């Protein structure tokens, strides 16, 4: 799994690729926590390069969502470009209703 972060004016884009499973999810979790520790609460997770995601990855995403929603300054974690498989996993968990999901990165970044 690879992670890169790009800062935009209104949101940060975290691009993840590869497999997000129980062995790699802690790295995603730490990356997201690091952003929030630096008071970045508007985050777009670009999932276009994610070939596989298990519940461990969802757990990291949900704990981030919970924290950005709580504040102190309220933000959001929005998702862009999930593959068919990742979209299915989100749906299985009932999280497709919880996260705002965009088909393209520009739309996700522009939504902030």
């Amino acid at each position, binding site marked *: 799994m690879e992670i890169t972060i790009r800062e935009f004016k209104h949101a940060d884009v975290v691009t993840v690729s590869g497999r997000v499973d129980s062995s790699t999810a802690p790295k995603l979790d730490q990356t997201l926590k690091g952003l929030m520790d630096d008071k970045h609460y508007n985050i777009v997770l670009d999932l276009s390069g994610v070939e596989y995601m298990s519940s461990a990855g969802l757990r990291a995403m949900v704990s981030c969502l919970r924290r950005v929603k709580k504040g102190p300054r309220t933000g959001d974690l929005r998702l862009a470009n999930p593959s068919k498989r990742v979209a299915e996993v989100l749906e299985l968990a009932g999280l497709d209703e*919880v996260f705002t999901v965009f088909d393209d990165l520009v739309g996700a970044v522009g939504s902030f």
Partner: protein
Amino acid sequence: MPNEQNLVIPGQYDSIQQACQFVGDAAESAGLDSQSVFHVQLAVDEACANIVEHAYEGEGKGDICITCGTDDVREGTRFYVRLEDQGQPFDPDVVATPSLATDADELKIGGLGMLFMRKVMDQIEFSFRPGSNELVMFKRIEEETAPRVWHRPLEQSVFLVGARGRLDHTTVLDMETALNQLLSAGHVQLVVDLSQASYINSGGLRALVSAWRAARKQGGDLHLCGVHGRLREIIEMVGFERVFQIHSTPSEAANALIVPSDA
């Protein structure tokens, strides 16, 4: 069961992917379509992660033994995966609190893995004996949608072509097409896996020989594996065991192709 395959991995998170790969390959060979293969891999991933977390309560405390195969029940053929560990028993229903919620604040994320396993598999069974836990998961094989011929990269430059059921008529054409596609794409190190095939006609034998010849002409080779029972009889009847190198498993065949034994 004669068609069972087995793998033991250490109970560590970074070993689980190996289990998923192993089970995925077996599920594909057994005739599951690509979405069902993904479901089986997801269920095995979640089950192994649960074993490490709840049964062993940490990494490096013990092994996970994975066995998969197929069995026939009244409804048809099923693919099954059995996971065994020596950790402490854990109550699946305690872990299994459903985590569906519409509000992020109410989300309980524990138990998601178990929820996935229940949703994507047709049936799951737990049993706990002193010193050993066992989980068996089943997935039905839809005969109509299952591909009869498939191919995939095996190891390094080696590709595998697999075929299921009776190798005659259209199945032979499908196999020829798969072999020709690989050969014309420059993949000349080939393994044909016949472990799921029950019969091969003379057209099928011709297709194998002409692919073997084409592969060798381009500096490659074609080996067979999983030749059993009736199929072995047919192959020996026409003397093909002298033409083809025959191995018991795909990985054995791949190794032989990667390191040719000229001796």
